[in-house]
């Protein structure tokens, strides 16, 4: 009996070993590939004026812009669902939001390609593939994603706080503003950082609408290329791509862990 028990635990520990080996292998591959292409590209060139800065700028502009568009909308929606709407409606809206948060981004990309890009093309008298189209698309994807994160953040506030405030005669809106939101401010910021990580890592939908010309984003209507779309386009060609991948990895994982740390 004892023997069998130990065998089970040993077997479970072995699977952890297998998983860790696979994951170490994954990281090792990226690092060695990135390190080996240092000679072909030249590290100083890469970091001073190469193809790297426009991509990073594109990523940052796109993520920040999409967040500026999406955060207020997602925030107001989440607050309404969690605090102000009548419960039966709130339950339905919650399901609605989580369905949309789980839809693959490509579908939003296709939607943007069919509606947003032609609309921008007629408005700006250009091809329509631009930073602005990317912003709108990514903003649209981020709205349900962020709303779901904000709903999770708001649900960490204990119900007793709300009840106490209401017992003192505060209206739902007063309760929300002066009790609920101050309590979960950190969690809300965590959600925003996780949204930023998601925005930096998203590739397929952005690639469909941004035009993909490697250049510094100088205006809203200029086509851009971001780190992730560049990787998706040229990832199979090897070389300096792996350095970009490491950069993207550090950026996304860093932002995401920061968000999780804040939300804790």
């Amino acid at each position, binding site marked *: 009996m004892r023997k069998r028990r130990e065998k089970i*635990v040993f077997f479970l520990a072995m699977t952890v070993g297998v998983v860790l080996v696979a994951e170490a292998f994954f990281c090792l591959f990226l690092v060695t590939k990135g390190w080996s292409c240092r000679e072909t590209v030249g590290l100083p060139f890469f970091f001073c004026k190469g193809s790297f800065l426009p991509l990073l700028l594109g990523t940052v502009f796109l993520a920040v812009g999409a967040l500026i568009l999406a955060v207020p909308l997602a925030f107001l929606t989440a607050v309404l*669902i969690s605090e102000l709407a009548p419960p039966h409606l709130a339950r339905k809206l919650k399901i609605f939001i989580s369905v949309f948060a789980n839809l693959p981004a490509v579908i939003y990309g296709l939607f943007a390609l069919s509606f947003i890009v032609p609309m921008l093309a007629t408005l700006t008298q250009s091809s329509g593939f631009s930073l602005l189209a990317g912003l709108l698309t990514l903003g649209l994807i981020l709205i349900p994603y962020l709303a779901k994160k904000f709903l999770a953040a708001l649900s960490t506030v204990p119900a007793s706080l709300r009840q106490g405030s209401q017992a003192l005669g505060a209206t739902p809106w007063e309760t929300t503003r002066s009790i609920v939101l101050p309590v979960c401010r950190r969690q809300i910021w965590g959600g925003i950082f996780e949204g930023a990580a998601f925005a930096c890592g998203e590739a397929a939908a952005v690639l469909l609408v941004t035009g993909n010309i490697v250049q510094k984003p100088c205006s809203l209507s200029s086509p851009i290329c971001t780190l992730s779309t560049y990787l998706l386009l040229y990832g199979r060609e090897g070389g300096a791509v792996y350095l970009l991948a490491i950069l993207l990895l550090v950026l996304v994982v860093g932002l995401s862990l920061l968000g999780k740390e804040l939300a804790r």
Partner: protein
Amino acid sequence: MKKERTVYCHWLVTILVMGLLLWVLGFVLWFGLKSLSALDPQKLTSLFAGTLSILVVAFFIAAPLAFASSLYIFAFAKAQRRSMLLKLTEALAAVPPLIYGLVGAGVFVGGWELGTTWALALTLALMMLPQMQKSTFEALAKVPPILSQGSLALGASQVVTQFRLVLPQAWPGILGGMLRTAGRSLGESAAVVLVLGTMSQDQFLAAALFVNAFEGELFLATALAFCLLLTILFFYLLAALVERAGGSFYG
């Protein structure tokens, strides 16, 4: 008076957001249904068969590993090691799928020269692994610790406690989380396109959708989006049913 106006503003924005999202859904359903005739049925069946076989292989590689390893980390590992491993899992679950695709293309296609099916299945398995571990942790953590503490206090071993007490409570959550992860990776196009390349995209639904959209074949892409949407919704429905069917008392 001012308060009322702010609440009004919340309602307005919510309606706007719902309208936008419904527009997306309506677009996919309406135009997808209309352009469904653009699809060759034979091609569609082979596409479905390819997608599902890849997903099933990836699922059966990743799910047992994720289940066993996260059970060990959750219940048997020492506290310090556990928190470290949890951090690692969290970090890896946050890695963009694109990078898994890059590594998959480099290792499984470029290095080991596997066939596309196996290379893709292994890449997806590698991608799903930390996400499944994360959802398993969440499901295990939902079982109140007081139950396992009581069992341990009565002299049951940790193995018996976990297998007889915790897992019967947690399995619907574990399986549901895994199905949800599978559904999410079904919609993953970036990683798949990197592994397959743009030439052989007729193996994975989301990749075919992306490549067609990229090449401007919007009719075909919309029809594929319709199929993808239905498949993914089916997976989420399955996950929700599993979670409910378990009738988990504490879930």
